[in-house]
């Protein structure tokens, strides 16, 4: 507790394998958030991680190097939350499916600016209206990757990949 992330990753953990550059670290499991490289000197405690949009959670960490796509990371964790949702409350049961569907579109390079707006709306709704902690924290990986790696979502917009899209109404 209180040890900087960098010490845990590079000194205790031995750093990124194959000499790659650390891009981000996901703390707290599927309900946590991704913390980018520039914040690695943050001490690991409840308040500091929360201020970066992540959590202590299970205490687990996943370190990613430059080859990882943050959209894929968010999609992977959303898939987990979608299959773990019990189905009792509506926002988590259906919202996670829609968020996963949108993230899937982004990771295939078929996303649109409108999809990004919809994704953010869904994150907000699922986080604030779900019955239990699973649904309330399910959007965390999406929101933290949107906060620090928004460019990766925007780069995967359809026009960049030669797919025509409809106009977004103002």
């Amino acid at each position, binding site marked *: 507790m209180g040890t900087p992330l960098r010490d845990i990753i590079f000194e205790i953990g031995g750093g990124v394998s194959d000499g790659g550059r650390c891009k981000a670290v996901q703390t707290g499991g599927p309900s946590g958030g991704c913390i980018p490289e520039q914040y690695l000197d943050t001490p690991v405690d409840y308040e500091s991680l929360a201020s970066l949009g992540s959590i202590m959670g299970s205490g687990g960490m996943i370190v990613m190097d430059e080859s990882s796509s943050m959209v894929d990371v968010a999609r992977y964790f959303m898939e987990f939350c*979608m*299959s*773990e*949702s*019990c*189905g*009792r*409350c*509506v*926002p988590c*049961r*259906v*919202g*996670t*499916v*829609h968020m996963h*569907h949108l993230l899937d579109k982004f990771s295939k390079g078929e996303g649109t600016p409108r999809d990004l707006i*919809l994704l953010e*709306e*869904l994150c907000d*709704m699922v986080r*604030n*209206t*779900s*019955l239990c902690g699973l649904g309330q924290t399910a959007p965390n990986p999406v929101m933290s990757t949107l906060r620090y790696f928004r460019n990766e979502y925007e780069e995967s917009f359809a026009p960049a990949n030669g797919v025509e899209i409809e106009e977004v109404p103002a």
Partner: protein
Amino acid sequence: MKRPYKTRVKTLKIDGMDVGAREDETILQLAQENGIFIPTLCHLEGVSDIGACRLCLVEVKGSSKLLPACMTYAEEGMEVITNSERLQAYRKQVLDMLFSERNHVCSVCVSNGHCELQWLSEKLGVSHVGVPYLYPQLSVDASHPYYGIDHNRCVLCTRCVRVCDQIEGAHTWDVMGRGVNARVITDLNQPWGTSESCTSCGKCVQVCPTGALFEKGKAVGEMTKRREFLPYLRLMREEQQ
């Protein structure tokens, strides 16, 4: 005879209005008594609440989380907001989720015009669904001699499960599966007509908010639900106890 007991009165504010509540009263009951509308779907007068549909969420001053009015008890000094713009937007989104989850095409539904989901979306002003439809291919079970269930219309409010367990005492209905794959089932996921516990009382059909549970022989728009029995039954049983 019910034993007379002392009632402690709580005073609180709902939408700026000063109201008094019994200590065993929920915000939803209190709002209804005072003529304040809070949308509900899974709530059913006479059976327990589960807070699953999230339509009755309200803002309570001092709480960072939105709380379901059906399961939140009135407390002294509470300040409740039932209809902020934020809540309205969330409620519409929750209805969006329900409409996109399964097939809710009103024009070909037995409960068209008598459906709570339809009524709520009109009342809350849902003009379109903002997310793509999932439309899974679900089955219809018509094996029961009098009733049928169309899983495509089910919103998983579990009213049928609760009324069957808590009022009829048969516990024929239950939920199987998880997440978006959850389904209501009869007995051990067998055809309704082969259920040994079902008493064919039809309570589940009458409390179903949509056209998921219906009486056989009803055409489009003919399935009106009769719920009057429920408060009556509950009252009679309370008096006997």
